[in-house]
Every structure is written in C-alpha cells, then in structure tokens.
C-alpha cells in the first residue's frame, strides 16, 4: 500500500490504518467484482435462459436487504465454519475477521450497482455493429473484445465508480461479517463509528469524515473525467 503521508498530517496510527484499509478494501472489492459483474450484466442483457429473472432478483438482494442481513449471510456462508468458508479455510483462504472479508462484503454490496450500470451500457450497444464486425470475419469472441467491450466502456467505468464509492462507505455488512478490529478490519466508516461511540471522539470523527468526503469527491471527479474522455473517443469529436 502506498504511504499517503497521512501520519505527518496529524492522523493517529489507527486512523492511518483505517484510511489505508478502506482504500485497499474498496480497490480490491471493485477489481474482484468487475469480471463477474460484466459476465452477469451480459447474461442479463443478452441471455435468454430460464431463471433470468431469478438471477436478477438475487443480484439485487444486497441493495434491498438490511446490510446486517447480508453480513450475517456472509458469515454463515463464508465464515470459518461456513458452507463455503470451511473448505476454503482449509486451503488457507480465510475471509472471517480478515481484511479480505471486508473486501468481500464491500464487493457484494456494490455488486448490484455495478451490474445495473454495465447492463444499461450493454443494452445501449447497437447489435448491428456487432453484426457488421461478424461479416468482416471477426469470430464472436473477437467481436466482443473489439466492439462490444469498448462500446460498453462508459458503463463499465460508471459501474466501477459506483461500486468503489459503495465499497468505500460500506459499514453494516462489513461490521457484521468481519467486526471492527482496529488495524485489521477497521475501515474508515468503522473508525468513525468507533469515535462516535466514545466520549470526546467528535474531533476524531470529524477529521475522518473530512477524509471520507474528500475521497468520495475525488473518485467522483475522476470518473467524470474518464467518462468524458471515453465518450469523446466514441463520439469522434477529436
């Protein structure tokens, strides 16, 4: 992890750890959610299969369930004694009470937002262009890589930023699944929450709130800039 030089700005070691962890968790959550996010969005946008509506519903569950339910579900499934967590932990992959668990929780919570944005962008891709690429000799995989993917890039970007922002602020599912251990699973939100629960923590909470606002704004601005440059390329105004 890059040292942001936060210690010199007067942040305490646990605060620095929380900020770093939040960024790390959000970045990993977004990157890990991206391939399955694109796959699921494609299936929902283009696929004609039995159970499509069911899949759509399941994907959207984290958006409508109380986060604590999602977190508890993760604990049951992915915890040390969980259905999937147990065989994984024997392989040395542990999610419970670990930063990877925080990333998993954040990724699951951001997943429906990401899928929605990507799905919309796939539906906006003109299938006639893909057809044209096919008549030029491009096999379906190539058509996807050279036509579909570049044209849906704005949606992939938008979806990633949404998922990143969601991951950065995730609280309920994370604290239920991996708790709030300073220096280990305590993210920015967890640290702010801890401050608000202790007397005299207001100054610390405000400091971290400012960081949180700055990070979210920076992510938003970055995505706007990227989206503009992408649509300029596709729109051909250059």
């Amino acid at each position: 992890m890059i040292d942001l030089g936060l210690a010199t700005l007067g942040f305490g070691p646990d605060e620095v750890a929380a900020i770093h962890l939040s960024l790390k968790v959000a970045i990993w959550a977004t990157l890990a959610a991206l391939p399955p996010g694109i796959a699921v969005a494609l299936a929902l946008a283009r696929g004609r299969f039995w159970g499509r509506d069911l899949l759509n519903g399941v994907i959207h569950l984290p958006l409508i369930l109380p986060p604590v339910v999602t977190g508890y579900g993760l604990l049951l499934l992915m915890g040390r004694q969980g259905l999937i967590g147990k065989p994984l932990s024997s392989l040395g992959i542990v999610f419970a009470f670990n930063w990877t668990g925080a990333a998993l929780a954040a990724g699951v919570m951001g997943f429906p937002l990401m899928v929605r944005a990507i799905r919309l962008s796939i539906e906006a891709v003109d299938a006639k262009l893909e057809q044209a690429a096919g008549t030029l000799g491009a096999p379906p995989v190539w058509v996807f890589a050279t036509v579909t993917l570049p044209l849906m890039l704005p949606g992939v970007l938008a979806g990633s930023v949404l998922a990143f922002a969601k991951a950065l602020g995730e609280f309920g599912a994370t604290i239920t699944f991996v708790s709030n251990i300073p220096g280990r699973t305590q993210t920015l939100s967890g640290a702010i929450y801890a401050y608000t629960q202790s007397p005299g923590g207001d100054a610390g909470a405000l400091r971290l709130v400012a960081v949180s606002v700055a990070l979210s704004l920076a992510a938003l601005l970055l995505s706007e800039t990227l989206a503009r440059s992408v649509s300029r390329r596709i729109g051909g105004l250059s």
Partner: protein
Amino acid sequence: MAGSPPPPPPSLDAPSLDMDVALRQGAFDLEAAVTAGPGLTVLFGQSGSGKSTLIDLVAGLRRPDRGRIAVGGVPLVDTASGLWLPPHRRRVGYVFQEARLLPHLTVRQNLLYGRWFARRHLTVEAPTLDSVADLLGIAPLLARRPAGLSGGEKARVALGRALLAAPRILLMDEPLAALDESRKAEILPYLERLRDQVGLPILYVTHAVAEVARLATTVVMLDQGRVRAVGAPSSLWSRPDLMDLTGGAEAGSLLDAVVGERTGDGLIPLDTPAGRILVPHLPTELAPGSRTRLRIPARDVLLSDRAPQGLSALNILPGVVSDVRLEEDGSRVVRLDCVGATVLARVTGTSAAALAIAPGRPLWAIVKAVALDPAT
C-alpha cells in the same frame, strides 16, 4: 470453428452465386433460386419482395428453412447436409444501408478491421489500404473518426472496409437509400469503378430504377418472395408483363448506349438501338466510346402521328406501337417499338384517342434532350 469440415475447393467455372432457398416467416413466404455471374447483379423489387432477406441469407444473418447457397463454388449453406457456415467464415463483404462504421475506431482502423481475419486469404492481387483509399477517394479521411464524416464519406468508407476484408462477393443493401441526391451522385461513379475495375461479383439490393440504369449488369426481379424475371435491364424494362413492377410513376425505358464525340454545337451523341440521341452534357467520367445506359421517363416523351418539323426538341425516334396500357389514373402508357428497342410514352386518354393509338400504328416519339439523364 473446431470440428467442422474444411470447405471443399471452389470449382473454376462455378457461378459467382448460386442459391436456391426457402424461408417462411409469419405471412412472409420466400422461395427463390438465384444465380449471379460476374459484374453487378441487382435484386430489384418493392419493399417486402424479399430482396434484403436474400442477401441476409447469403451473409448468414438469417437461416433458410431449407435450401443451399454457394459463392464461387464454395458451399455456405446446405440444409440437406446440415452445413451452415457462421457469418464470420463466409468471406462476404456486406455494405449496409447505414454504413455501420465502428464509432470507437478511426477510419483507418475501420478499413483494416477485416484485414486481420482475412490474412490467410490475402493474395498479391488483393487490394491494399492505399489502393482502396485511392479508388474511393478516402485517403484524406484516414485519421478521422466516423462521427465526423458526411453520409457520402461514411458510405465510401463502408465500401472500402468490405473490400479490404478480401471477400468472395460484395453484398450491398440499398447503400444509397439513406443519401440525398447530390451524395448519391457522389457515390455512383465509385460504384461503377468498383464494378469495372475490382472484378468482384456484386449483389446489389435496390428499388431505384436510376440505380438499375446506372449500375446493373443483370437484374433479378423479385415479387412477393418469388423471382419474376432475370435478364438485362433494357430487356426487362421493355417487357409488358413486368409493367406492374417496372411501371408506376417511375415508368420509363432503359436504352443501352455508346458515347460519341462531342459535336460542333456542344452536344454529345449517344448511339442507341432506337437511333441517335443528343444530350447537352454527360458525367465527366464518360469518355467517347464508353458504354452507358439511358433512362427515358415515359412522362418526358411526346408522341406525334407524323414526322415533326419545326420543333425545338432534338431527338425524334420513329417507331411502331406494340402495346397500350391503361393506368390507374386514366393515362395510357404507350409502348413504342423503335427498331428493336422499346421506348415508353405516357399520354392522356384524350391524346390517345386523338392519335388513334393502337398496336401496329406508326408514330414518332419526341424526347426533349434535357429529359435524358444517364447520371441519375
């Protein structure tokens, strides 16, 4: 695709296109056998006649219920043996009506898109980016993106892109329909050069008589999913039994012509089977000696029962009435046999009676020079 057998080698004298297909889709019922030789074959018919469906079948964008399709002797589809090549393995160059350029790529990247997939089929004679850019006049556009191009430029890039993919046949689905008149005039010479210089068979869908007159080597006339007639444009447009397809407001005759030397008073003679016709100007690319085709709209032809004198019109063709057809609006379309060629004239019922027009009657057709438009 893994597992599918390699296509058999093409036989040398196979027709450019040989198809015999049937497809039923709701109320639409297509059953057509089409063979096309070299040159430009026009699939002509009204909307719903099945002409676009036919080229979609050749390209693999649709599947026939039964039938077979072969291009240059290479089978693409044969429902009897279960053969069906996917579009990307057919090597057909499809020029769509809306160009369908890839918006995220430059013109150069669009042109070269099919190149990589065609790399095993590229021969020394295969057109290069430079030769195609020259042929179509798009060299100055290479660095631009499609969104910044005019309709005519897009159409030419789409044409070049299809050519560079080393196709065995070019399919064009009303490539000019979305363009205005001046853009059409801009593209037509390029299509002629393509037909005459590249030597690739072209299957061209249109319902515009002007494009038939200008481009067609052969015409396949489609009507409600069936082939009604096949032949040279001038012979099809002189057949009375096809008037329901070739007639209507656009009724007219097509005459093959050879361009002559410009005369002293600035007129250009065109020698047609019906006689010599003088026109004031021609498209610049038509040099003396070149062959062209004239379209004479029936509404621009007057009839006279004696050899006219003292008229400002230049072109007077003697002939014999072979057929008179009553149109829905009460006018008559008169078919005049002028030394083997057919000239159509539209007259009112009153005039038809006054001139006693009936089969066998000798008449003179008067064509105003300005009514001739080989270019459009």
